[in-house]
């Protein structure tokens, strides 16, 4: 009960994430929302590698809750740095000839936000405190969820075993999952 009360919110977040996945809520590219595009002056040092330029862009943009950027070159050979965070994507394209950085911000829906939040783990590379703290809360919650499930089943089985619906629930739950496991395997 105590672990349940301590993890009530995360239980709701996990439940919401399941509903979002089931409903296949559109992601940032399919949602149809127009990205916010801005340009900033930016000059890449002549001797810097793409990775180093990506780091400089990261320092300049200070994108909230984002980790290290994914660096690549697009079809026009322009350097693109993608900053993914729980809130969506910030894509910076270096317009080297013009000395500018084009920044495209795609903010996700609240539903996709919850989906991303449930998948934030302690491997998160974001440098600010909020994703780190949330990731540790998720870590605690994962172990709590296991503890809750195990103690809940133990309590249920030891106190309610004589009831037919207890036995039926155990059989349906166990056999059902076993069938899924074998069929999907």
């Amino acid at each position: 009960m105590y672990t349940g009360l301590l993890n009530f919110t995360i239980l709701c977040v996990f439940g919401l994430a399941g509903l979002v996945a089931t409903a296949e809520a559109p992601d940032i590219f399919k949602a149809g929302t127009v990205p916010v595009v801005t340009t900033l002056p930016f000059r890449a040092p002549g001797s810097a590698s793409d990775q180093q330029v990506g780091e400089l862009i990261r320092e300049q943009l200070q994108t909230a809750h984002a980790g290290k950027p994914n660096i690549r070159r697009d079809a026009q050979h322009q350097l693109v740095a993608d900053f993914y965070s729980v809130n969506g994507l910030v894509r910076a394209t270096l317009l080297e000839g013009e000395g500018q950085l084009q920044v495209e911000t795609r903010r996700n829906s609240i539903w996709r936000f919850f989906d991303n939040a449930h998948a934030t783990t302690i491997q998160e590379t974001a440098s600010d405190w909020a994703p780190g703290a949330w990731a540790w809360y998720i870590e605690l919650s994962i172990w709590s969820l296991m503890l809750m499930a195990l103690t809940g089943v133990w309590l249920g089985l030891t106190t309610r075993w004589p009831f037919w619906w207890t036995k039926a629930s155990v059989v349906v739950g166990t056999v059902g999952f076993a069938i899924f496991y074998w069929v999907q395997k």
Partner: protein
Amino acid sequence: MIFRFLRHMHLILGLLLFWVVMMYAVSAVQMAHRIRIVPVVTESDVMATPGLDARPLANELMEKNGISGEMGNVTPVSGGYRFPLNRAGGATQITYDRSTGKTHLRASDTGFWGVLNRLHHFHGLHNQTGVRNLWGWTVLFASLGLFALGGTGIFMWFKLYKERTIGLVLLGANLVVSVGLLIALRM
């Protein structure tokens, strides 16, 4: 009366969803701690009917060679094409020569951890196979079940007068910290 009903519902839901919840929790640990899944790969060649398109070929291989899975994207290669058949515990990459019917099978098996990991990610009600859709319904049931378990749990705790004070402290701490963090994350 209501208390009894909710207590029974809480227990029935908990027992029904126990293995599903454990699957999510254990696979979450695997992902959060990056426990490496090393696939076991086996390769073989078989002869199939020449000149087939990908879907009839997949059906023939499933019937005659006992492989299974959901078809992935078909990619043209010199003289034929290739595509994967994906299942929770691995995948079979099929490379087919259209003129001769020679088919190369590259099967990778990811074992117990792999199955749990894939089950964690499978979702939706519009998949190619009925089994996958049934799993999608299970995910939906489990998601709603989590809300119901939380809600009935809160109700039952509130009815235990002796536990109200400590419960309020725990629930309050949970709400302040987690909602605060969610707001900070969304800003």
